[in-house]
């Protein structure tokens, strides 16, 4: 589904990704871990097309297309979804309006009919249950005045409605208490299917108790320095990241 080869990206004149290689197949869950500043959030944002980053080298193939050639909206229409670390507040637009606009744009791009607000409400009702939410949340402005937990839950609700093929969760666990974490993780797990894939970007192993990955990759200084199975996350939890950074230092 996703093939990243020697991906390099900069913000301003600072190189943040310094040659990433990663392959993700349908049905898989990959965890990308690493210390602060390792580039893991940048990787997530570059995949979604964040304008603050410039890709300086390498390639990303997504379902046979050159992902880097697509505008952010085209990536979303092709099934890529980024759950933001810091979801943006949009006062003046209701959650329902925003989500229906997104849903219809994606349908339009796929040659499907747009849905009216009544049909959309029916769809929403079912998706709200996934994140254990009341419909009242949909009449509030997008993320405006939401708590940290509500914002993350809203990201998962959007994901549930838009049904991406590739979901990238950027630090979705940060700022969540244990109950919110459970709800968010349960939502993600219910959305797992053999034909979609998930990349979970996280600093801590905690989230991976709930969203169990098939593969774990450790990012340090803009490169993947170690990959392994889910047991690697536990090892990182026990030993921290320093031993891996030392390995990199020795190698270079």
């Amino acid at each position, binding site marked *: 589904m996703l093939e990243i080869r020697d991906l390099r990206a900069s913000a301003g004149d600072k190189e943040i990704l310094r040659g990433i290689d990663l392959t993700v197949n349908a049905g898989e869950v990959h965890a990308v871990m690493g210390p602060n500043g390792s580039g893991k959030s940048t990787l997530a944002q570059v995949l979604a097309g964040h304008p603050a980053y410039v890709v300086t080298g390498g390639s990303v193939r997504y379902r046979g297309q050159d992902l880097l050639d697509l505008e952010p909206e085209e*990536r979303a229409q092709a099934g890529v979804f980024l759950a933001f670390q810091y979801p*943006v507040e949009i006062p003046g637009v209701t959650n329902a309006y925003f989500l229906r606009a997104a849903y219809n*744009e994606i349908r339009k791009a796929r040659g499907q009919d747009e849905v009216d607000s009544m049909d959309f409400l029916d769809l929403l009702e079912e998706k709200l249950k996934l994140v254990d939410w009341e419909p009242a949340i949909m009449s509030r402005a997008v993320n405006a005045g939401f708590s940290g937990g509500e914002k993350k839950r809203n990201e998962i609700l959007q994901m549930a409605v838009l049904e991406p093929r590739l979901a990238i969760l950027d630090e979705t666990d940060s700022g969540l208490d244990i109950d919110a974490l459970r709800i968010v993780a349960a939502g993600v797990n219910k959305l797992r299917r053999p034909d979609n894939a998930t990349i979970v970007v996280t600093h801590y192993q905690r989230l991976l108790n709930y969203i169990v990955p098939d593969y774990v990759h450790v990012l340090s200084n803009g490169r993947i320095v170690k990959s392994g199975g889910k047991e690697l996350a536990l090892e990182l939890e026990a030993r921290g990241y320093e031993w891996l950074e030392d390995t990199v230092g020795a190698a270079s």
Partner: protein
Amino acid sequence: MTEAFVQDFEARAGTATAEGPEWLEPIRRSAMERFARTGFPAARDEEWRFTPIGPIAQGTWRPALGGAGEVTREQLAPFVFGHADWTTLVFVNGIYHEALSTIGTLPPGARVASLAEALRSDGALLHGHLARHAPVEGSPFTALNTAFLSEGGVVHVGTNVDLASPVHLLYVTTAEAGGTVAHPRNLIVVERGARASVIESYVTLAPGQAYWTNPITEVAVAAGAWLEHTRIQRESETAQHVGLTHVDQQRDSRYRSFSLAMGAALGRHNLHVRLHDENIETLLYGLYVTRGDQTADNHTAIYHDQPNCRSWEVYKGILDGRSRAVFNGKVFVKPEAQKTDAKQTNRNLLLSDGARVDTKPQLEIFADDVKCTHGATVGRLDEMARFYARSRGIPAAAADLLLTYAFAAEVVEEVTLAPVREELDRLVRSRLGGL
């Protein structure tokens, strides 16, 4: 150019525009004399420094004379909203048009009439209010309006009367308005404990015409009364509009204003509110949307004269093309006005490189135990919000439109009456490009 106005003033003798109770003519004459002395504001006048009044001051303007025979209700349909039985006074080219107007069911104790009619039958009421709230010394435009004062809308809501349905004062211009000036004079009196909602609209059937509207609305909100006041300025984009609203509020009263300005080459509105007593609430919301070479100029002044009052003001602007906006927000807090709670916000969204905003908060606070804040911003669409919307599949142009609308919607939401709010929402959507 002032002589032409003096000549027009003298030429009124014997016509309908010179009619009225005998106390009125000296007020008009003294206002005329004042304008003849001062003329239009000079370029150095701080109050008009950023306001391009050249086309008005150097223009030749004939008095607007109605001439409304051919206007139909169908033509007015785009400007009428809410329920069909709302009382709507229609003025065509400055003159009241009875056949196009609707007098809905009004509760006992409420009266709505044209000013010309009220001058004939409600002399006592008018004597107590007309030209008492908006002093002619305020500006040359006020003096000129007062000199030619003869038409407008009068809304009087008696003690403890709930008007229930809004009253709409609808000013429409036609092709015949080209080269003319109208001086509408409205009076809204909401007596003790009464409630009312009044809408003023300034619209056109002749989008290319260059005319000038110089309206004044005087508002008295008595003790414990409540008024929601909506102003919609959608003049021809080649017209001039210089308006004043002056509000006097008494104890325990609530005044809520929304001003939408989308029309006129120059659209200037002064909104002055004096809080005469304690426990008064004043909420002023505004939105201006400009393009091309338009100028939207809002001057507000809130006078906190007594303690324990609250004023809250939010004006927002969306500017495209080479348009300009001016915002001047004055808040005066007298030494005795302790515990004043005043907040002022002016936010501007620039959609083009050529647009420009001059924003100036002006707080003069002479009491020490008050909470007064102000903030002004001028900026572009938020890049993060833009990316967020695009990352959900919404194309860039649609995302920009959505975020621009959201910026406006945040203030339109403050209108409490649903049919009015929905109409404003519709106007903003269609102006921004059909959302």
